[in-house]
């Protein structure tokens, strides 16, 4: 009964739920052949390249692999720093 209450309150996710959440991540990496650390590296290099051209906020960059059916998509959300007009002269 305690377990039932825990589950009801979301403190003890069922094992099926855990299996599903784990598999979601595993399958993304299997399908793209991209490990979490490779994705982090990709993110760092992307920030570096983009920063050469435009000012961005590195901490706010969000890069994810999203899925639609069996199709994978790399989604990057890169907020730009508001450009302060430099005073001329």
């Amino acid at each position, binding site marked *: 009964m305690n377990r039932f209450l825990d*589950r009801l309150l979301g403190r003890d996710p*069922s*094992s*099926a*739920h855990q*299996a*599903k959440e*784990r*598999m*979601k991540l*595993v*399958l993304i990496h*299997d*399908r793209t052949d991209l490990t979490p650390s490779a994705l982090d590296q990709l993110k760092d290099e992307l920030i570096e390249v983009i920063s050469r051209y435009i000012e961005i906020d590195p901490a706010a960059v969000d890069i994810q692999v999203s*899925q639609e*059916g*069996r199709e994978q998509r790399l989604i990057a959300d890169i907020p730009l720093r508001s450009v302060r007009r430099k005073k001329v002269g």
Partner: protein
Amino acid sequence: MGAGLEGIIVGKVITVTSGKGGVGKTTATANLGAALAATGEKVVCVDADIGLRNLDVVLGLENRIVYDLVDVVEGRCRLRQALIRDKRLPELFLIPAAQTRDKSAVSPSDMVRLCNDLRDEHDWILIDSPAGIERGFRNAIAPADVVLVVTNPEVSAVRDADRIIGLVEAEEKGPARLVINRIRPNMVRRGEMLSADDVLELLAVELIGMIPEDENIVTSTNRGMPIVLDGKSRAGQAFRNIARRLRGEDVPFMNMDEESFFGRISRLIRSGG
């Protein structure tokens, strides 16, 4: 040959595969073959698991083997001589795998040639693929018109099924169709097993059948009798439904939660209330 010249392909090739071993490929092949043959269509089941022959014992035909798949491919016998007729279903045939050879004895083009010959005289050619993603798997899917991927609602089987579905697509044999085998509705209800919906959401592929776990599979396999021949078995019913879907019928999916009256009574007695 004749069929090729006229441009008419008669038989359809269905390959049953899985990635992970032990999920029920051979049981599925035997039962789909028997279910299709029971409707009067001419069916041949081909065991492509060379070196690990099993379809013969599941079908109860192990004592009738004279020639095997490798004998046909290497020209030691005629195709007809390797076809073993089933004891119960006159329209069901088996070509057994060789037991003392390995997968390299057969090539994908050998399988395509063999199946093209079989298409002339059979409505259905069902190929039981070996587990894995090596040569044996490539042999099994080379001639396929439709690929069925069998999985169980557990993490390792689902992960391997995903790999196989990707490979089937890469070989342009997709989209694969999914069979979820050995579902235990009681565990799903308690949140202790992935549901069919969970598995479908993860794999994002079209479902062709769900088979509930059924102890009768063990006893019928002990006897070498396909479960589809047992009119009372729920698993048998589920396999018959898949056979009908293969034939193009629109059959609603079985409700996994539905339990027979006796099943419910015995469960109540066992749980003491």
